[in-house]
């Protein structure tokens, strides 16, 4: 990674720091301030969009740790989000637990379930693991859709998040929950990847046989990876459940699991910053397609509105394919190239 000209590290802590200079601190704090002040200026639909991006980001961070850092392909991430949503809903609605208690508990519940789903990863990998995770996607959703306690195929209502007597009923009030939880989870994800655990996960991704020969317990670290990824998914599911206030088995489908993988491909595999870029890019792209479809359809009435709505699916698929061909390292790599150019301009040395 290029540092700004004249910046150097003379200690391990400085070398491992994420933010190196005062200017970077200033930008970071300004960015956080902008995020905190956004609901005061943004429209309700933009705040809702940011809420959706925040919740999806938390889920995809987990998938990035599992797939991007550990190399375990998972096509069942949407089912883990469903587990988080339903466990949080049941803890709140049936047991009466407050939201701020059911949030971490649902994460833990999902993480334990993730351990069970992750067991096949000890024996199979690559394509076969992907198939196993697809199976888990269908099995989990089938079970949820057939239990009376979860409301079966009708779904269930979820109480809104409350703190004392204050109810987080509006998009703007809920934004702050999503923002704070999102910042914490991003911080946790970033630091996992910078520790011994993260290095072990990367070693397993790069060559699990060599990692094992080096003394890394791949049994332990693979399961830990599933545990962490499922925890993130559970947190995201809980946030979504208490935000939308209605959950339904059909909300959590295989298509979403595939799109989450697409987001980490577009953003950059093996990069937390890339996850932010990928989620933001794809969700904003989807929003733009949803806005543009009716407008374009009205200009070409003979073709039919549904054709333009289906264009959205084509656009997403095309974006993923183009990134795989032309920028396989994702938006994060482009960002690094831009920073390198900016910092070295006009000289390179």
């Amino acid at each position, binding site marked *: 990674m290029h540092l700004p000209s004249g910046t150097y590290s003379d200690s391990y802590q400085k070398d491992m720091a994420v933010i190196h200079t005062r200017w970077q601190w200033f930008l970071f704090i300004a960015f956080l301030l902008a995020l905190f002040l956004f609901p005061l200026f943004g*429209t*309700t*639909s933009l705040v*809702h*969009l940011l809420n*959706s991006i925040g919740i999806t980001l938390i889920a995809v961070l987990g998938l990035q740790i599992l797939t991007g850092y550990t190399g375990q392909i998972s096509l069942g991430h949407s089912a883990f989000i469903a587990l988080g949503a339903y466990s949080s809903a049941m803890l709140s609605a049936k047991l009466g637990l407050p939201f701020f208690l059911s949030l971490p508990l649902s994460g833990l519940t999902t993480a334990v379930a993730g351990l069970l789903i992750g067991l096949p990863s000890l024996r199979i990998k690559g394509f076969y693991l992907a198939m196993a995770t697809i199976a888990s996607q269908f099995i989990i959703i089938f079970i949820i*859709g057939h239990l009376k306690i979860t409301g*079966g*195929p*009708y*779904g269930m*209502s979820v109480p*809104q998040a409350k703190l004392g007597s204050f109810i987080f*009923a*509006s*998009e703007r009030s809920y934004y702050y929950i999503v923002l704070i939880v999102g910042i914490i989870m991003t911080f946790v994800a970033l630091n996992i990847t910078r520790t011994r655990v993260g290095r072990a996960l990367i070693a397993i991704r790069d060559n699990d046989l060599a990692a094992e020969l080096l003394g890394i317990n791949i049994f332990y670290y693979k399961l830990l990876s599933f545990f962490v990824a499922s925890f993130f998914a559970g947190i995201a599911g809980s946030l*979504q459940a208490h935000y*939308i*206030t*209605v959950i*339904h*088995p*059909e*909300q959590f489908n295989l298509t979403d699991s595939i799109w989450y993988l697409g987001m980490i491909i577009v953003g950059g595999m093996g990069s937390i910053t890339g996850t932010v870029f990928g989620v933001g890019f794809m969700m904003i792209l989807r*929003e733009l397609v*949803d*806005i543009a*479809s*009716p407008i374009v*359809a009205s200009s070409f*009435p003979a073709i*039919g*509105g*549904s054709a333009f*709505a*289906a264009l*959205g*699916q084509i656009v997403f698929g095309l974006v993923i394919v183009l990134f795989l061909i032309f920028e396989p390292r994702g938006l994060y790599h482009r960002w690094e190239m831009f920073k390198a150019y900016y910092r070295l*301009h*006009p000289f390179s040395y």
Partner: protein
Amino acid sequence: MRITRNSRWLMLLLAVTLLLISVTPACTPKQAKTIKIGQTMDLTGPIAASGKILVEDGQWITKYINDVKGGLDGAKLEWLWADDAFSPPRTISAFQRMKEDGIVVIIVQNSTSALALTPIAERAQVPIISMNAEPSSLYPPGWVYLAFPTANADLFVGALTFIKQNWKGDQPPKIAIMGWDNSLGRSTLNAKKYWEDLGIQVVTQDFLPPTAVDWSTPLVKARDAKADFIFVSNSHPASEFVLRDAERLGIRGKIPIIMNGISVQIDDSIDAAGALTEGIYWIIPWNLSPDTAGIKEFMEAQQKVTGKEPRLRSSSMHVWGALNVATEAIKRASKNVGVDKVTGAEVKKALDSFKDFDTGGITPPITYGTDNRRGGSAVWAYQVKNGRVTPVSKQITVPFVKP
């Protein structure tokens, strides 16, 4: 890439121009007053086949209301639509955007979206007209209104009543239920009390995922249980798969098959399955007789606006009904407060005032009120004879199957 001083200035100029364009209000001619109705439908999800028809019909019906009927008390109707892919979060996103565009009522395609949208629409004071609804979204009465159709469970009760009315056997009739393994398919189970009261025996209950293409297992189970009728609750194109498998197993023509006519697109089924639909029954929550005033208006409107041979698709009644109810409510609100002051809250008040609203005979007169949100309250049985949808029953009044 070298960035020269000139190109830097050019880039700065471009950025400033874009900024000015984005903040300067567009200079457009003064527009007539516009009243906006929002609609979400599934165009890319599991029931996209239905959504496609809604878009096509919604466009010409809007044109008909504006160009032929003169709009809404001098105001132009603008119909905004968006794809929600059967996903409640996307329904909410679409609603938020449309609310900022100034919609006064939102029409949604399915019950799950209606349920998820309810607290948000209530906060935004915009009533929801749902094209399909389960009892949980209609009861207790709130901001969700069902337009023309009955709820799925009510329609099944209509099917049971039709069977009872026409049953000539000595033993109680036996019915096999099959459908999608979701709220649409399983809604039939809410009517347990009714089939017990009517003395009808349900011999099998089978529900398959919406992606299922092979319906042999439930059909064979129905045959082996010696069912007298088979009731199918899914949607196009799954309905054609059922008919194909029934034909292959020799069941079609031997055991009468009754389809749920809210979701199943009869016309698309006839187009796709052709002769396989011969003799199949549909229970539909509207009167499709060409003599009905409402149907005559629909056909004439379609011909006038599209210039093509009008086509009566049963699923078109979803949009026709929803837009009729919505525009009537807007007109009433406009009469009360003036066209410039119509808001969602006023439209809701107008909807609550519906008493015996005449739908041109397509459904019985609609009455909402503070304790009722169900639109239609009757069904009709049809059968395909010589490729044509033919009525085989009079109006069958159905109760509201509460959760």
